[in-house]
């Protein structure tokens, strides 16, 4: 890891309590062995500031087998070209903007990209309506500021500033939720690659390897629409919803397994059939069309993303392990599904009831699921 700048704080991930006890390890912790394996076999040129070559980063994201038989698990299941564009963007030290509806793995991709490129995915600015300029530029330790006057010691750097100093990848989550004026502070950073500190008469110049990965939500357009000046400093990659049921089942099953391990749930085999059913329900309601394309449906107000399907299944697994017979059954996921679908109690309940009575009821092999849903709704 690059040498920490003078202001580097000590509560970084690396110094955090033992990895076994954290609820959710960072990508670079969870997949440390894969990253090490890739670095070992990586003989292609690496852009300065990168810990892996762009080829290795692509392999890390999409999975693959190394010459010695080492297996890299896929982190992103979807079109290869999207990941290639993302990696190529970062390799040309451009900023990357990941767009997509909620639950299309934007944050997930950005975390893994950062972990693979610079080995650190924690330089993160979370965009909210209350994000202040200090979170993007720098703040002050007021006690020291009052006692000593403006000095480098009194400066509290933002994650972005740290990333610039160390030549790392900074992440900005939910860029469009930030107020416009805060967004605009990014413009100078991205085009001039420098952050002036007028109080000290100094500036921080970004080291090679610095870049920004931002995520933004398609549906939130209009919250704080990006200015075109900022927009054109990003290369945009739109992450789509999974293209097919099989792909989505694959994603859900994979993530559920990983989550189950890190949450130390009692081992319960995640029945693929049950997962397929959850995914089918989600896809049908999302697209407003049954899988066979014969029946039109109403769509509920929620997004019904893959991420929600994952949480429904995980939740069901926990139920099955603790209160059920250890096998994921229809009754375990029914509650979660109803919760995910019925977001607006008035209109969504109608949508759900219609779906239940017209589609689910007709499917012979779904009888248990129908009964379970009837019970909870």
């Amino acid at each position: 890891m690059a040498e920490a700048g003078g202001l580097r704080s000590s509560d970084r991930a690396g110094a955090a309590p033992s990895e076994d006890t954290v609820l959710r390890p960072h990508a670079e912790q969870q997949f440390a062995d894969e990253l090490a394996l890739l670095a070992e076999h990586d003989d292609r040129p690496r852009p300065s500031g990168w810990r892996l070559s762009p080829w290795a980063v692509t392999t890390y994201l999409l999975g693959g087998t190394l010459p010695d038989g080492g297996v890299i698990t896929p982190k992103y299941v979807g079109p290869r070209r999207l990941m290639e564009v993302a990696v190529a963007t970062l390799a040309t030290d451009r900023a990357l903007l990941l767009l997509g509806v909620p639950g299309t793995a934007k944050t997930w991709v950005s975390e893994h990209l950062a972990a693979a490129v610079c080995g650190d995915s924690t330089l993160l600015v979370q965009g909210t309506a209350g994000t202040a300029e200090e979170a993007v530029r720098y703040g002050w330790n007021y006690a020291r500021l009052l006692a000593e006057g403006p000095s480098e010691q009194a400066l509290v750097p933002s994650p972005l500033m740290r990333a610039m100093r160390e030549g790392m990848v900074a992440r900005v989550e939910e860029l469009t939720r930030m107020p416009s004026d805060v967004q605009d502070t990014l413009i100078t950073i991205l085009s001039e690659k420098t952050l002036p500190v007028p109080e000290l008469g100094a500036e921080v110049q970004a080291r090679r390897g610095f870049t920004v990965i931002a995520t933004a939500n398609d549906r939130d357009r209009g919250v704080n629409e990006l200015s075109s000046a900022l927009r054109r400093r990003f290369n945009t990659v739109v992450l789509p919803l999974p293209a097919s049921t099989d792909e989505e089942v694959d994603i859900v099953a994979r993530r559920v397994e990983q989550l189950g391990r890190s949450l130390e749930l009692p081992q319960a085999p995640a029945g693929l059939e049950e997962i397929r059913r959850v995914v089918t329900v989600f896809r049908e309601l999302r697209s407003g069309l049954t899988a066979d394309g014969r029946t039109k449906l109403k769509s509920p107000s929620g997004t019904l993303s893959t991420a929600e399907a994952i949480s429904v299944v995980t939740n069901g697994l926990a139920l099955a392990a603790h209160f059920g017979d250890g096998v994921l059954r229809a009754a375990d996921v029914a509650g979660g599904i109803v919760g995910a679908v019925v977001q607006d109690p008035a209109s969504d309940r109608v949508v759900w009831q219609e779906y239940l009575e017209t589609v689910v009821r007709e499917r012979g092999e779904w009888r248990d699921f129908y009964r379970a849903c009837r019970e909870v709704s």
Partner: protein
Amino acid sequence: MPRTEIYGVRHHGPGSARSLRRALEEFKPDVVLIEGPPEADVIVELAADPGMVPPVALLAYPADTAARTAPGGEPDAPGRRAAFWPFAEFSPEWQAIRHAVETGVPVRFCDLPAAHQLADPAEPAAAAAPEPTEPDGDETERIRLDPLGWLAQVAGYDDAERWWEDVVEHRGEGPSPFPAIAEAMTTLREDLEARPLQGGHAVPEAYARRERQREAYMRRTLRRTLKEGYERVAVVCGAWHVPALRAAVPVGQDDRTLRGLPKEKVALTWVPWTHGRLAHWSGYGAGVRSPGWYHHLFTSPDRPIERWLTAAARLLREEDLHVSSAHVIEAVRLAEALAALRDRPLAGLEEVTEATRAVLCEGAEAPLALIRHRMAVGERLGTVPDSTPMVPLQRDLQAEQRRVRLKPSALAKEHDLDLRKPLDLERSRLLHRLRLLDVAWGEPGPGGGRSKGTFRETWTLTWRPEFDVELIEAGVWGTTVLGAADARARALAAETATLADLTSLAERCLLADLGDALPAVMRSLADLAATDVDVLHLMAALPALVRALRYGDVRGTPTGPLRTVVDGLVVRICVGLPPAASGLDDDAARDLLRHIDAVHESLTLLASAPAPAAAPLGRDAPAESRPVARPGQEEAASDHVNRWQNTLAGLLDRPGLHGLVEGRLTRLLHDTGRLDDVADRMARAVSIGHVGHEPARAAAWIEGFLSGGGLVLVHDEALLRLVDGWITGLSADSFTDVLPLLRRTFGQYAAPERRAIGEQARRLGTTAPSRPADDEDLDLARALPATRTVAQILGRPV
């Protein structure tokens, strides 16, 4: 010692073309042999004409198609047997032709003559195009059909075009790739020939035989050329054929292969071609997906990526999308980084497209689709010089196109024609005539192209290369567009056996201004109408005729014969309708009703028909609103209406009429004001005592009476009042009986309509009585002109 160089190329590969051009300049051949039909040898010099701009194609067609010119001659299933050899600017073959023509070296085409290719029924296409085969298809077959694809697969590419681009097209300046290609093909063919022995499947026999013939002919041409004493012979052919041309095959064997081939008289010419056609139509086994991109690669070898992306940015700016030079710079960098990441020597179309999407389009798909359509395919239409051999019809069309100032273009373009302008009228006539000849250059817009009134037509014009074939085939009918369309219309009139088809033909004749053919069509029509016993056919024919009559008026076409036919038709319908209306089941009644409605509407239209639009009109005044009508016509028309209404009235009193029809007729006659006892009839129709009373019939009656949707009830207060009065007048018992029927009818209306009807019905009791009082304040004198105009527009008698 004569020297022969064989250049194996990829058809339509810009890299091949560039390498070939260089190789030819170095080799300086004194004769060039090119894979193509030898009949084209005589017209190859046209390639040097400045008027010849690719994409163009050699077109071979059976010579007797155009030779027969007798109008009315039976076109015995005009054979679609034509073959094309397309050339784009970036086709190696085209570059070879240009090189030869520029340096004054003779060009010979050495493929199997088109005479044989067209004559062999087993092989309709010029040369079976290796379609991209199924991935799970038999391996041997795949190698044979797509050798380069197989090589690409071996090299680890999933797409042959990309592989070829990387290995050949993107090489830029370098040693000639041709020896290596020849070597690869030799190995591949040897490998393939060894396969059937190992138990693999052979390629389709017809395909293999055709290929043997083609290669034998190529060898024969090569031998002849050498015998003529040429010293430096260059042969340009598909890479696959190189080993076969090099092989030492005994003359006798080739002669045996080529003996007794079926033959046909063919004619060859150059026709304009389009990039779109190159993109999905496989010339001789090599359709390219993105001709625009290849054209770009060929014409701008200097910094192609930068130029392409700049052009894309300009295109987006034209569409008012903000794209700066900074965008272009970043897009170029991204494309290059992507190419590096994918281990490609130079960014290809795919990388450039990704970069365009991520940077120029900021992730949006719509502008990307625009770029794909306008640039990657890069729709363009080639031109051929005037000296190209053409059938007279093609020449006439060219003259017509110049006259009405319509230029053929491969890009779909919309034209809005105002038929009151002479030029636009001429254009419309030309397009309609061409449609009669099956040359669908213009597609009429929605609503038959008349959505905006009878004096406007919308057309979408797209020129497709196969129109030249259609024109050559249509040469049977005549030497000018007008003459051919006329002859075609007469022939169609003689053939057509149903009234509806004939009337639509009459309509087309009017649209195309084929006044000479119209009497023939009308004669057929009158004959058919006289003998046709099915009144439904007559009724189906009437609307189109009435439309034609009115439309003809606007276009200034004489419609005398048409009117005669309409008059006869109306009389026949009125006579034939009553017998046809009895003893119907539900479906037949519904069918009849549709026709009755259509005829009723047409006749109303006819009665309000305006005078021909002779005088120039104000731009915004539709022709229909002209207040003066020709007295004679008016009379005839109102005669028809009277006769029709009398027929309907007579029909209404016949017993045993289907409920639906009776209800509808009651309503129609009520609307015309001819019935004064509607309320009684209504009561009678649903009363218990009615003859043959049963609930279903009553329901049908109500349905027929109220058909036309719930909105009629909302707006026609008199009707609503009638229905309202009838319902409120029912006794309690009758009401219970009728209620299900009403529910059935009203249940078909949409919910908002039902609500509106209800609100209207509530208002009936309250505001209605006060209305007549308002009338006393009206200034009738002032209201009269406005009322008259409105009545005119609505087509009501004033």
